[in-house]
């Protein structure tokens, strides 16, 4: 419809039809932009609180009544927070990164062969395997917390990063396998077959022929697993008890109810954790839904 109005060669009547439509739609456009700005602000509220709060001084952030903006801006909070006495924030950030990178790497190694093989070949047990993968989505770490706590305790792995790496890799496996499975399935079979005729083994066909074609799906799975692992809370809470091993999510949760919490540091480190996660999610924005919906729709 809009192409009519924009095409210069259209006869007069169409142009006349197009003109009022455009005039009608300009003001709603502005109205929508205003509504959009309000929505954007509402969604930014907690993160703006973090941003402003992270620049306040220790006294300023607990002042009654509060001020919206810092009386004195304290950009040095972003340096002093790493050595703050209340909590080992640097160790907590390192824990978050180690667990997330470890879980993502494990997910990658475990899911790529499974997703590739189930997408490319038919074999007995394939349906059962994919069914179990979907069931995994329902059994989240929060629901399994007591079982995981006792299992890793019995294995002597309580209070270790390894436990959380295993748990996060497993709990994001459904999303990863489904999105990769669909990516591999969309690669024409002929491409793989041609490579096989040239004498390439299955592994070589996967690595040299398929992987380069499906990287968007793999990037999506990698980013999603990384971000979800960085934000995991329940299992970390029950399994990691040493404060220097705890990820940020657990370490920060302990500040609720503290009388003189250093909120400025919590907010500073929160933003440092949130910003990369948001940027990564924006990269895969278009594909995020695909990974979650694929499993249930097919």
């Amino acid at each position, binding site marked *: 419809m809009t192409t009519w109005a924009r095409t210069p060669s259209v006869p007069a009547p169409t142009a006349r039809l197009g003109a009022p439509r455009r005039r009608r739609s300009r003001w709603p*456009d502005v109205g*929508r*932009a205003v*509504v*959009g*700005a309000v*929505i*954007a602000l509402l*969604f930014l509220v*907690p993160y703006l*609180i*973090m941003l402003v709060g992270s620049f306040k001084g220790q006294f300023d*952030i*607990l002042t*009654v009544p*509060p001020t*919206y903006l810092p009386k004195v801006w304290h950009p040095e909070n972003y340096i002093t927070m790493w050595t703050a006495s209340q909590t080992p924030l640097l160790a907590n950030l390192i824990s978050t990164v180690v667990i997330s990178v470890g879980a993502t790497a*494990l997910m990658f*190694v*475990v899911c790529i*062969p*499974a997703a*590739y093989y*189930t997408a490319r*070949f038919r074999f007995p*047990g394939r349906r059962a*395997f994919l069914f*179990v*993968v979907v069931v*995994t989505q*329902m059994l989240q770490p929060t*629901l*399994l917390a*007591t*079982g*995981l706590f*006792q299992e890793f305790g019995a294995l002597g792995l309580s209070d270790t990063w390894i436990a959380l790496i295993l748990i996060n890799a*497993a709990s994001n496996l459904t999303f990863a*396998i489904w999105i990769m499975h669909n990516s591999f399935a969309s690669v024409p079979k002929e491409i793989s077959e041609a490579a096989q005729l040239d004498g390439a083994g299955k592994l070589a066909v996967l690595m040299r022929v398929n992987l380069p074609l499906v990287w968007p799906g793999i990037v999506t799975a990698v980013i999603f697993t990384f971000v979800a692992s960085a*934000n995991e*809370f329940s299992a970390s*809470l*029950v399994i990691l008890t040493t404060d220097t091993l705890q990820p*940020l999510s657990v370490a*920060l949760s302990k500040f*609720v109810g503290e009388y003189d919490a250093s*909120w400025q540091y*919590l*907010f500073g480190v929160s933003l440092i*954790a*949130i910003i990369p*996660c948001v940027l990564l*999610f*924006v990269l895969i924005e278009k594909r*995020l*839904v*695909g990974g*979650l*919906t694929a499993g249930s*729709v097919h």
Partner: protein
Amino acid sequence: MRLTSHNTPAQGRVTDRPLGRALRALPWNAPATVLIFGVVLFPAGYLIFNSTQRFGLSGLDLGSAGFANYVALFQRPEIFPVLLNTFIWVISVVVITVALSLALAQFLNRKFPGRRIVRITVLIPWAASTVMTSLAFVYGLNPFYGIINKFLVDIHILRVPLGFTQQPLPAFVTAMAVGVFVSLSFTTYVILAGLAAVPNEVLEAAAVDGASSTRTYFSIVLPLLRPALVLATLINIINVFNNFPVLKLITGALPGYSDDTTTTLMFKILQSEDNLGVANALSVVNFVIVLIVIAVFLRVAQPLKEVDS
């Protein structure tokens, strides 16, 4: 191992035998299968088994307890209010989230200047840690130094700062609002994907027929959104039921159990009381609740009807 296709008759025969095919698939699927069994199915079975065991104070397994843990669980005075809280929590948060997301997605589906930026801000709570987002609300809603409270007073919505998180009822409602806030992103994105799949021709045909936009929405768009809505609701039920951080951070500091759901109660029994047996029993109850809620929902929504037709 290296060649799969039917290059030679001999290899073809081996390839086609079901056992052979299953065995050849094994190395490719075994790592994922081991991970699922080890970290998902085994702990599930382990906690079900342990729910019938007695435990010493140190966590030592003292042998079978039969159903004693379940009896102890249901003799706790708070259990039935907590069960009621759980249903109120899940149903309210999911219903409000889906309703708001429908409106939000409808709005974000229209073109306007700056839409891309608004969509990104809607995405942020999904990417951000729920713990961190909740912390900002806990701080902002504090009656003494919280700046959301100050803002509400400054624009005359409140006369004096309100202790949003100091009393059980306001704290539960606040937790619900934050629960909705962190669930909106995912839900809106699923519905947006559903809206993108509504064919333009259908909408144009409705416009040509003179259908009002309300009529078009309820008679055409909403029915076409059904699969997306069913999916969004289903995943939301699981996520909201498991949304432990929001409740823990906003209501967790309150004494007693008046704001607990079965999930937060389970963590209290596990961590504060060190009562493994009862915590296991409650975890099994949680399994059952999730299954029942999902079954009832699928029964009511009947998504398969739509998929089949």
